[in-house]
């Protein structure tokens, strides 16, 4: 086991990693930006180093200062958390070159899964179903020909794309020429790469992802699935749950099998997540995230496994402490992301100083957060303030418990998603389960005129 781990992150996940380390008897080093001097993750670590000014390029993405901190403190490993440098293969490589173990998969695997086209190709070759799609297409005519073959509607996507840029839904052949021109131009402007490909558009899929863990000796297990279909119009997840409710058991088993097969195929080590689009009986691989995810606690709650501790154990060379048969889920867990955002104004993020902060407690409630009464929410970072996770023997009881937990939550000083998520808990369609990713945007579209 490691003696000292450098936590290359901030906020709740830095605190989460700190807790896992301390429970394992491992000392911790926090890094922070000048804007985060008063953050809880700094206070709880055994040592803390300022690595730069507030903006992320100067601090949380400052590879030289972060690695240097690790060397100065005598750390033997780095946990990258999620976001920032978590899926930066070069960072993982530099860490390794300086004698610091990167708590995550091999840099080559990070790089391969980080490139959409490569990841799709590898998964396709491993027998993982992917959305029917073309290779690079150089003209609108070629795109139209391919679309005719797989059938409309299709999605035009930029190979370098991300965040919805360079992406267009095309409903009919008549729209193809102009859609291709604008999407390609947008991709060229955003990514300096206007290359496009075409994918089958799945209208109302569910976003279901499977958690896997692999050790350095080739053993891979899955820890079931999470349903993350409740997404904001920006495609950011808002509410996640485990297991996925109202899912055909055959589809569930298939997802689990595919995930383990895929992880084995890329010789995956550490914690990872395979994201799928699920459309009735059809499942399509979307991407693989080579890190711990924001919503990992819902899996932890139903499986009774501390995923972050497992990450650290695996990276230190230990074998998985359980087999697939040992892993049995119990009940249901739901997570709500408490963001400093205004749901009444397109989830516009907010920053500032918080007033009174009160989090819920009681049976079956877990709160992962780095904020407290009077703490500062700097403008430079993600707007997530906390994750509230509840468990219940059934989904119904978990929803009632979440409603109760959110009713106990008070965050003054900024607008948050608390009340909005409480409203969702009371919504009949949400309670009915099995919603697609288009549900929340439609819900919002119908809701806004009603409240104005």
């Amino acid at each position, binding site marked *: 086991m490691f003696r000292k781990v450098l936590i290359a992150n901030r906020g709740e996940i830095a605190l989460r990693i700190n807790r896992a380390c301390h429970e394992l008897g491992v000392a911790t080093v926090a890094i922070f930006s*000048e*804007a985060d*001097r008063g953050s809880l993750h700094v206070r709880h670590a055994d040592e803390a180093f*300022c*690595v730069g000014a507030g903006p992320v390029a100067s601090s949380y993405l400052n590879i*030289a200062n972060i*690695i*240097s901190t690790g*060397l*100065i403190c005598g750390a033997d490993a780095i946990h990258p958390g999620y976001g920032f440098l978590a899926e930066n293969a070069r960072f993982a490589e530099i860490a390794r070159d300086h004698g610091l173990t990167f708590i995550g998969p091999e840099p080559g695997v990070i790089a391969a899964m980080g490139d959409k086209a490569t990841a799709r190709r590898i998964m396709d070759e491993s027998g993982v179903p992917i959305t029917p799609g073309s290779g690079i297409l150089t003209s609108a005519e070629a795109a139209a020909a391919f679309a005719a073959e797989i059938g409309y509607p299709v999605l035009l996507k930029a190979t370098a794309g991300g965040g919805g840029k360079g992406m267009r839904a095309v409903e009919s052949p008549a729209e193809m020429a102009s859609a291709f021109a604008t999407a390609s131009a947008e991709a060229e402007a955003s990514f300096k790469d206007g290359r496009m490909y075409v994918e089958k558009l799945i209208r109302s899929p569910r976003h279901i992802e499977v958690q896997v863990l692999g050790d350095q000796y080739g053993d891979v297990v899955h820890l079931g699935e999470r349903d993350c279909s409740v997404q904001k119009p920006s495609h950011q997840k808002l509410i996640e749950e485990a297991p996925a409710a109202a899912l055909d058991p055959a589809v569930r088993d298939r997802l689990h099998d595919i995930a383990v097969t895929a992880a084995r195929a890329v010789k995956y080590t550490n914690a990872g997540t395979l994201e799928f689009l699920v459309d009735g009986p059809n499942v399509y691989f979307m991407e693989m995230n080579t890190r711990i995810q924001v919503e990992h606690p819902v899996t932890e709650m139903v499986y009774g496994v501390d995923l972050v501790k497992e990450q650290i154990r695996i990276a230190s060379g230990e074998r998985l402490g359980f087999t697939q048969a040992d892993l049995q889920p119990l009940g249901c867990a739901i997570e709500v992301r408490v963001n400093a955002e205004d749901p009444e104004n397109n989830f516009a993020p907010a920053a500032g100083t918080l007033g009174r902060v009160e989090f819920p407690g009681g049976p079956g409630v877990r709160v992962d957060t780095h904020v407290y009464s009077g703490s500062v929410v700097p403008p430079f970072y993600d707007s997530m303030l906390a994750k509230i996770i509840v468990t219940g023997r059934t989904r119904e009881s978990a929803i009632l418990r979440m409603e109760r937990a959110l009713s106990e939550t008070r965050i003054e000083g900024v607008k948050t998603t608390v009340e909005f998520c409480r409203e969702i808990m009371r919504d009949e369609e949400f309670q009915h389960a099995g919603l697609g990713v288009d549900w929340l945007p439609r819900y919002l579209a119908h809701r806004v005129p009603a409240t104005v």
Partner: protein
Amino acid sequence: MFEDTIAERVRPLARAFSDGGLTRLRVREGEFEVEFRRARPALGGSAAAAASPAKEPAAARSVEAILADVVGIVRYLRPAVSEGMTLEGDRELAYVETLGIRNPVRSRGPGRVAMIYVTDGQPVEYGQPLFAIER
């Protein structure tokens, strides 16, 4: 955190302020800002004023803290800079070693070394005061 700020940043500056016989010292660095002012002219100043009463009082001296802009290990130069040393121009005072790279720490102009906060070989974080230069 407030106590830490006092211990790490304000106390050393207060010492530099009082040891340097200054009348005013203002340091601003990101969200951190502190200013010291002397109610009466510094002892040295009043002695000088007594010696030549006709002369205008000397302009208030200011002290600039030179902060680390990288995380690394401080390395003194040979010969090392010492407190009280007068700097003729922009001089390299030390360097901070980060992943084998030497990041020079410069005085950013002439002045007098009022304070050295770090020892040779000491690890420093971003924004940590290294030297105080009196202008």
